């Protein structure tokens, strides 16, 4: 699939009427951020068919909400609550049943404390990701998955993981953990965190400004990622330290995953994955300039 086919309109919403309907569903489900919701509402105002779909969905939601919910009888609740207590009673030292009901207050704080981090991922679901996942479904459904056929399985799942990381970074408050255009700041930060850092040339004069770096965890390995900005696009460059079994790929390989374009190549120390929603030529140009910058100034790539 060419990256041009699913190019969104100016408001960034899908062109295809069926995909647009999915956005109406997403609006009704409260899955859109304010900007996207506004854009969808604007489309609805201009398109009576979308407005009618929205009215039907709202009506349906009301109708479904009127369906009586399953009730938990006291008897059933007692049966389930007993699951935890029966096991306690089996212990030599009896535990008062009240422990099960009295302690939640204490524990509550811990549970809530865990939630903000999860909520960040769960609630800040935005339409770009949806659009990307629609595109991904289309790719999977059509069977035209070039990246499934051209690369081996290991790099497939790696590419998908890189794509997921990139997508998450677009959703997060900031795509970087350390904000700096200065490699003398980014490299030591990465070294301090995970003991490894790739060359981090600032290529602002070429149109690729270094925004900073973050740590990606792929598989079970933390690895450094650099973030560059090119016009309105972000480019994430994941640098996986080379392992013995990793196959050498001195020539850049073009891939795509999760609706993003990727370029993969290796040098002596790292296996690089560049990913972006920028156009292919821009991404290729970035890769070429990055590789040239490392060769021109290897000091930037020395450890520490």
């Amino acid at each position, binding site marked *: 699939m060419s990256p041009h086919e699913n190019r969104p309109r100016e408001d960034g919403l899908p062109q295809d009427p*069926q995909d647009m*309907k*999915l956005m109406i*569903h*997403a609006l009704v*489900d409260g*899955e859109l951020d304010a900007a996207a919701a506004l854009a969808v509402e604007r489309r609805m105002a201009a398109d*009576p*068919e979308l407005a*009618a779909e929205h*009215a*039907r*969905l709202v*009506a*349906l*939601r*009301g*109708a*479904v*909400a*009127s*369906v*009586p919910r*399953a*009730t*938990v009888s006291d008897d*059933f609740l007692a049966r*389930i*609550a007993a*699951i*935890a*207590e029966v*096991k*306690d009673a089996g*212990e*030599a030292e009896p*535990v008062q049943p009240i*422990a099960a*009901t009295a*302690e*939640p207050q204490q*524990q*509550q704080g811990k*549970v809530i404390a*865990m*939630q903000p*981090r*999860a909520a960040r991922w*769960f*609630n800040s*679901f935005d339409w770009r*990701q*949806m659009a990307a*996942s*629609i*595109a*991904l*479904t289309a790719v*999977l*459904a059509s069977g035209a998955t070039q990246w499934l056929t051209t690369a081996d399985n290991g790099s497939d799942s790696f590419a998908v993981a890189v794509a997921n990381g990139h997508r998450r970074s677009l959703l997060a408050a900031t795509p970087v953990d350390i904000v700096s255009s200065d490699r003398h700041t980014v490299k030591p930060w990465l070294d301090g965190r995970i003991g490894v850092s790739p060359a981090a040339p600032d290529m602002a004069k070429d149109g690729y400004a270094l925004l900073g770096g973050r740590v990606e965890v792929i598989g079970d390995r933390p690895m450094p990622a650099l973030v560059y900005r090119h016009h309105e696009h972000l480019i994430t460059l994941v640098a996986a330290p080379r392992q013995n079994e990793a196959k050498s790929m001195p020539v850049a390989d073009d891939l795509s995953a999760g609706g993003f374009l990727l370029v993969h190549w290796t040098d002596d120390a790292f296996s690089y994955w560049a990913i972006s929603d920028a156009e292919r030529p821009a991404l290729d140009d970035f890769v070429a300039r990055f590789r040239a910058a490392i060769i021109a100034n290897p000091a930037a790539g020395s450890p520490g």
Partner: protein
Amino acid sequence: MAGAPDDGTVLSEKMLATRFAEVVLPHLGDALSLARWLTGNQADAEDVVQEACLKAHAGITGFAGGNPRAWLLTIVRNASYTWMARNRPRSVVAVGDLADLDDVSPPPDSDADSPEAALIAKANSAAVEAAIARLPQAFRETVVLRDINGLSYREIAAMLGVPQGTVMSRLARARGLLMTELGGRHEPA
């Protein structure tokens, strides 16, 4: 160990009971709703949820934070299918069939000028229940997880192990079928 438990064991037993009380018990209503829609009736739903709660208690240490409702419902869903495979082998939809469902494009829209919205809004709850019950399994569980259990697209995708785009298209298909039925619209062919 057969001997008297040391302090650590007692503590962890207590902690398990506490976690169970705060992670599982508040969401029994949702668990029963989901099980009822998947198995088709309340009595079976209680059996399934009880089984699921036993599993949840055994695996409570595996709950790593996040949404406890989604965590419990994942177990309930698995327990429902296990239960149905055992008790009603014929009714279980093989997972392989789901791909076909996802390929079906949404029904074409007839006229958009609709008093349908009004008809849908007036549908009584028995009619809504019957319409949901008639949905194909994959559509029914998606719409129940979203509209009755209130999970987000992301949580549903994680639970079903499918991309979010698939969740969205199943949801749209399920709702399209419900709207067709409740709105008195006849799907062409």
